[in-house]
């Protein structure tokens, strides 16, 4: 066997082998593209097979055989033309013209014996024209795609060029120099290169696939690894979606998180929230319900109920697969693109890997969240413990007086039933019993306010009425508070009793920590969106480092403890909770010239506000001070 015969035999085996592979795939996954691929290699394999048989039977010269061979050979460029349409789309007229031209060229083949040179020229022209067009289209397509698809498309284009080259070389050789063996060798070598390229494009072996896929996967892992540390669920998912879309070079990706209890999937929406759908809704939902990947080349036809959503997201083709960790169903990943995947099995493979990686990341996030929830529960338990212990401490002191004084009275009476009543002792008992009562109600109030929704019904209230009520109560004790308020109403939606409690409390504090006779003033102002109630005193003031901590539970300013030791350190905490439940803020700033000014800011009723702007605007006074406050905490 000569070298050329050997190459020829290898070529024949490879082309037939390739045909078997693509034919098998066309049977398994029926689509126009797999059919056209099978058509391309089927025609080539048929030509090779028939020539072998004909050569063996020594009937090569038969006009009918030559006609059939040419008919099959010329089918290859036509199949390429159809593949161009499958992969990147062509105008309809190209397909029609291509089909017509094929019929003409094929018919010409049966006139080979009449005018062989004309037929050969026509075949060369047909191959060069259509093959050139197809190769150009595949090269353009490879430039538009990425990752493994790009590699495969480039291989297909190379295969087309080499195959055309081989055919043209052989046909031209037959025309120009029929006896030159070099031309035959050139043709066989080009054909060998072509079939190897075609293998790379249409049926790449797994090791080549791995090499070609690796960068996409690496890219996804690199882009997505940090989502573990993103605190916000929604942002983490959005980042994961972007990384997935980038790995596929797709228009977008969508990740739905499953709630197995109620059978729903939630997806991040375009804004800052979530969209919830029952599973089974959308192509993604179907993939989740079936726990199997779903491919929709045309999403709108596959799921016409949500045509508008697919159109909005430029999601013409969708592939979706479940995201699972072991047996646990975490959610679903859908990738959408403007065009159907060219080599769908590669995209599905990548989908599976990306979904697995996403599952690992989401699982890690959930574990982290579980841990922080656990820490939160521990913290809550610790706070409760602290609360009980502080409460017990503060209740014991007055109880000591009540018990001691009562026992003293008891003894005195036992010794001498006619003894003069110890007026001071009785007053102490009564006074401390009242203090106990106040402490207990303060304690219960603070405990109630721990829970959300401790505030009663909120009604539209003119804050001037609140201030009038507070002022009125102090007038009864001959304390005439100075009030500065606007002439018009300032209406907020509040639980009026609670807001009165806040103002009362602030005024009581102001009186407690001011010199005898130095009365606090109340100011009520508004800027249109917020109302401000300021209680201005000229008392001892609050050290700067403690201006945030005084609103904490059980915290008492160090300079307040020397003045009175009756409080539990819950008053300002209660005020803060009430104000916060009203979506307001409370803080303290120094009064110019000495003393403290407590400011309560409440939203005015009926003003629409932008939550983003709200969040961005933080009162400078309420911003947690880092240095001194932390030190104070460490000291406590």
């Amino acid at each position: 066997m000569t070298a050329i015969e050997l190459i020829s035999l290898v070529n024949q085996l490879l082309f037939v082998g390739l045909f078997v592979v693509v034919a098998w795939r066309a049977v398994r996954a029926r689509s126009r593209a797999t059919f056209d691929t099978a058509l391309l290699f089927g025609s080539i394999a048929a030509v090779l097979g028939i020539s072998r048989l004909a050569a063996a039977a020594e009937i090569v010269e038969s006009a009918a055989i030559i006609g059939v061979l040419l008919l099959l050979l010329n089918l290859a460029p036509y199949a390429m033309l159809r593949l161009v349409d499958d992969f990147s789309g062509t105008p309809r007229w190209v397909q029609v013209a291509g089909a017509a031209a094929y019929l003409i060229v094929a018919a010409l083949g049966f006139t080979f014996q009449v005018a062989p040179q004309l037929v050969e020229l026509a075949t060369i022209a047909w191959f060069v024209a259509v093959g050139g067009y197809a190769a150009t289209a595949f090269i353009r397509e490879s430039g538009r795609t990425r990752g493994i698809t790009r590699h495969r498309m480039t291989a297909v284009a190379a295969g087309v060029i080499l195959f055309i080259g081989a055919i043209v070389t052989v046909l031209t050789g037959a025309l120009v120099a029929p006896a030159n063996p070099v031309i035959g060798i050139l043709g066989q070598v080009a054909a060998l290169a072509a079939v190897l390229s075609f293998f790379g494009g249409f049926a790449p072996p797994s090791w080549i696939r791995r090499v070609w896929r690796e960068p996409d996967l690496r890219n996804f892992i690199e882009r997505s690894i940090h989502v573990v540390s993103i605190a916000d669920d929604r942002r983490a998912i959005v980042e994961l979606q972007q990384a997935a879309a980038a790995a596929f070079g797709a228009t977008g990706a969508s990740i739905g998180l499953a709630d197995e209890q109620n059978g729903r999937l939630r997806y991040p929406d375009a804004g800052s929230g979530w969209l919830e759908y029952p599973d089974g809704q959308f192509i993604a939902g179907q993939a989740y319900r079936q726990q199997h990947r779903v491919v929709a080349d045309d999403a709108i036809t596959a799921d016409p109920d949500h045509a508008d959503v697919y159109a909005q997201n430029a999601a013409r083709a969708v592939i979706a697969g479940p995201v699972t960790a072991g047996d646990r169903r975490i959610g679903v990943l859908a990738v959408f693109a403007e065009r159907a995947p060219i080599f769908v099995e590669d995209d599905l493979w990548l989908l599976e890997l990306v979904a697995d990686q996403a599952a690992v990341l989401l699982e890690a996030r959930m574990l982290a969240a579980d841990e922080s929830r656990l820490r939160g529960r521990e913290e809550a338990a610790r706070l409760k413990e602290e609360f009980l212990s502080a409460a017990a401490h503060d209740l014991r002191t007055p109880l000591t007086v009540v018990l001691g004084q009562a026992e003293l009275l008891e003894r005195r009476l036992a010794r001498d039933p006619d003894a003069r009543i110890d007026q001071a002792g009785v007053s102490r008992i009564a006074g401390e019993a009242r203090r106990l009562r106040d402490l207990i109600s303060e304690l219960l109030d603070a405990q109630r306010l721990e829970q959300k929704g401790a505030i009663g019904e909120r009604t539209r209230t003119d804050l001037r009425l609140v201030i009038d009520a507070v002022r009125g109560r102090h007038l009864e004790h001959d304390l005439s508070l100075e009030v500065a308020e606007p002439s018009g109403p300032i209406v907020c939606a509040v639980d009026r009793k609670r807001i009165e409690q806040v103002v009362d409390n602030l005024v009581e504090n102001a009186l407690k920590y001011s010199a005898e006779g130095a009365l606090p003033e109340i100011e009520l102002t508004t800027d249109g969106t917020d109302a401000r109630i300021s209680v201005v005193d000229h008392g001892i003031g609050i050290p700067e480092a403690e201006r945030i901590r005084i609103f904490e539970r059980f915290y008492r300013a160090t300079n307040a403890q020397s003045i009175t030791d009756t409080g539990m350190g819950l008053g300002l905490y209660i005020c803060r909770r009430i104000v916060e439940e009203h979506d307001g803020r409370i803080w303290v700033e120094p009064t110019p010239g000495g003393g403290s000014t407590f400011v309560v800011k409440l939203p005015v009723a009926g003003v629409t506000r932008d939550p983003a702007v709200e969040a961005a605007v933080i009162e400078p006074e309420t911003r947690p001070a880092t240095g001194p406050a932390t030190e104070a905490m460490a000291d406590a």
Partner: protein
Amino acid sequence: MREVRILVVDDEPDIRATVSAMLEIEGYAVAEAANGADALHAIAQRPPDLILLDMRMPVLDGWAFASELRRRGHETPIVVMTAARDAARWATEIAAAAFLSKPFGYDDLIHTVQQVQSPS
């Protein structure tokens, strides 16, 4: 018999008054101080035989007072009076002779004081 002198240190005037009244009925001579600093001052004037000491006080608290007292070389026995739960631990910390957990009654107080005064 010599009069036994007791110093009651507590920032709550009502507690001081109550404790003092009980001790006086039992025949002790009582002096009062509102915080650790006042107490050191009183001791310098006239050292007592026993100190009843609250722990949480402004200006100079129980710990600071106790360590300052020992530093000055006074060996006067101390009885801790506290509303905190771990009274026993604090008593050990400042090497007190005994402790009283608030709220305590008449008998608790007198028994403790007698115990410290004449350990049998």
